């Protein structure tokens, strides 16, 4: 029996040393960044590492909903994260973020347009927790050769003519936004009757939908796989470059104006490096590089002034004049019960 215990002890000791290797050794500076997929010019990361000597450990997520539990669980500790508006207010409310010291990020105030901080107050009322990175609208991308009439309304997504030619967004809030807007409701609605009506509308639409997608909409539209897709404005510029028959439109019923911003989680280990990283991202030449690579609208006015191509600088897609559109809104956090309600209804749609 003694022998058994000895072997057990030895084995457990071996395992303890095995596990110990997982911890970070040494005093090397590093920053853990958690960002959307394909949402940065990889060259920029290299440049940051070269200029500052800080190693970037970079990770990607597909939706805000996927990002949140990872940061909340604390299993993976990130120093900089790039969530969207409503998710930022959820994170603030649940005490997951720390206040950003803007003194250490001079470029944030110098280069980012004041109007974006104004909009940001909807989810970060004191402008203390987030630094805008990208913004845009959600709209309809359609293939001119595959539709007959000019498109200006979400209702086209319910047109029998386009059965199997429609790509819908596969995220709760965006899907419900489309239905709620079409019904003339607020996309932040918590009214059960309105939400049930939206749910019914989405269920009615399901047979017409070819697929629910997030970013695959890009490839599928380029490859003429579908006629109409719901897409983020930033992707529209890229897809138009690859397929000139594609056109982007903001529907007349209104849509979502979103901002993705850098935030620092409360449990961040390398706050100083995180500040340096965010400041770097706000530099005009870096923001310009990112804009040219990912084609999502930048709130960095200094970078916008550097864009040489006049067509892009004045592009209605990249930098729309928002005063021309009605019923534009930004998502707000709906609370735990609101989230649960949306998720429940969305599951009903998906399982139909």
């Amino acid at each position, binding site marked *: 029996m003694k022998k058994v215990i000895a072997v057990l002890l030895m084995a457990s000791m071996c395992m303890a040393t*095995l*596990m110990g290797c997982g911890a970070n050794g040494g005093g090397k500076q590093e920053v853990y960044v958690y960002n959307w997929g*394909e949402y940065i010019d990889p060259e920029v990361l290299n440049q940051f590492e070269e200029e500052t000597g800080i190693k970037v450990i970079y990770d990607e997520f*597909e939706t805000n909903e996927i990002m949140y539990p990872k940061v909340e669980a604390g299993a993976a500790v990130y120093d900089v994260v790039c969530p969207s508006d409503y998710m930022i207010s959820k994170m603030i409310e649940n005490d997951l973020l720390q206040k950003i010291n803007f003194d250490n990020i001079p470029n944030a105030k110098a280069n980012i347009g004041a109007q974006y901080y104004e909009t940001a107050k909807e989810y970060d009322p004191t402008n203390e927790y987030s630094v805008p990175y990208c913004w845009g609208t959600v709209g309809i991308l359609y293939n001119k050769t595959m539709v007959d009439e000019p498109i200006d309304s979400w209702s086209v997504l319910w047109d029998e003519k386009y059965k199997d030619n429609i790509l819908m967004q596969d995220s709760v809030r965006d899907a419900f936004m489309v239905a709620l807007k079409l019904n003339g409701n607020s996309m932040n609605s918590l009214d059960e009757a309105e939400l049930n009506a939206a749910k019914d509308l989405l269920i009615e639409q399901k047979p017409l939908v070819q697929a629910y997608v997030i970013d*695959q909409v890009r490839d599928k539209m380029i490859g003429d796989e579908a006629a109409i897709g719901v897409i983020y404005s930033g992707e529209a510029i890229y897809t138009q470059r690859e397929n000139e028959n594609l056109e982007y439109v903001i529907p007349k019923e209104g849509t979502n104006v979103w901002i993705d911003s850098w935030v620092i989680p409360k449990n961040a280990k390398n706050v100083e490096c995180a500040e340096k990283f965010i400041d770097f991202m706000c530099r005009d030449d870096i923001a310009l590089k990112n804009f040219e690579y990912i084609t999502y609208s930048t709130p960095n006015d200094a970078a916008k002034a550097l864009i040489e191509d006049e067509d892009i600088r004045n592009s209605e897609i990249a930098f729309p004049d928002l005063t021309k559109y009605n019923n534009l809104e930004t998502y707000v956090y709906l609370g735990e019960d609101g989230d649960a309600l949306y998720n429940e209804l969305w599951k009903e749609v998906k399982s139909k």
Partner: protein
Amino acid sequence: MRNALKKLYITLILIFLYAPIVTLIVLSFNKSKTRAKWGGFTGKWYISLFKNDDIMAALGNTLLIAFVSSLVATIIGIIACIAIQAMKKRSRSIVIGITNIPMLNADIVTGISLMLLFITLGIRFGFMTILLAHISFNIPYVILSVLPRFKALNPSTYEAALDLGASPFRAFMKVVFPDILPGVLSGFLMAFTMSLDDFIITHFTKGAGIDTLSTKIYSEVKKGIKPEMYALSSIIFISVLVLLFLVNYMPKENKKGD
């Protein structure tokens, strides 16, 4: 006629199995960045692949995890086999039952259960968590391919070696090991393949900033796979193919000489 039908049937199945693979190899020569469009022939992805640090890091992780996890699994597996062989029938079937769990359990449940374990233990998710997970699901493949070899073994040779004064370890290495070697190798290879191909369990046990090829591909699926990934997979596939042909045809000639 019957033979022709049989050949046709096998051919159809092989087309079914290999059509996607041929597609991927073709895509690796596609000039256009999106898989939706054929933009002409190019070999440039095979060059830019080696400059892509992300993919190279993911490849390194994948191979390292596959190698280390199958090696550790093989060692633990062989030791376990010796013990299982010496067990009484009842305890043996219990141990075999436990061994079967990871093989028969759904990957998603295995992945989730390990994720919950690591979170509870407070281990930071990363290379080590993936490695531990892979070792766990690899051990059964080793045991199930080594154990039959032990059963076929003649125990008296081992005892004879002991009687002739060999230490147990030496006797094992000299007498037993050569006999179980084919099982060990096939178990190792099986474990290596399983580790290489695993996505689901890695998906739940990986942490920040670490990717294997599988998780890297899954995150790229949403945005469109980078053509370098097709190029890399083609290289891996072709080299394994060549290796297998060599392994399969070389020893045959040797055997003829025997």
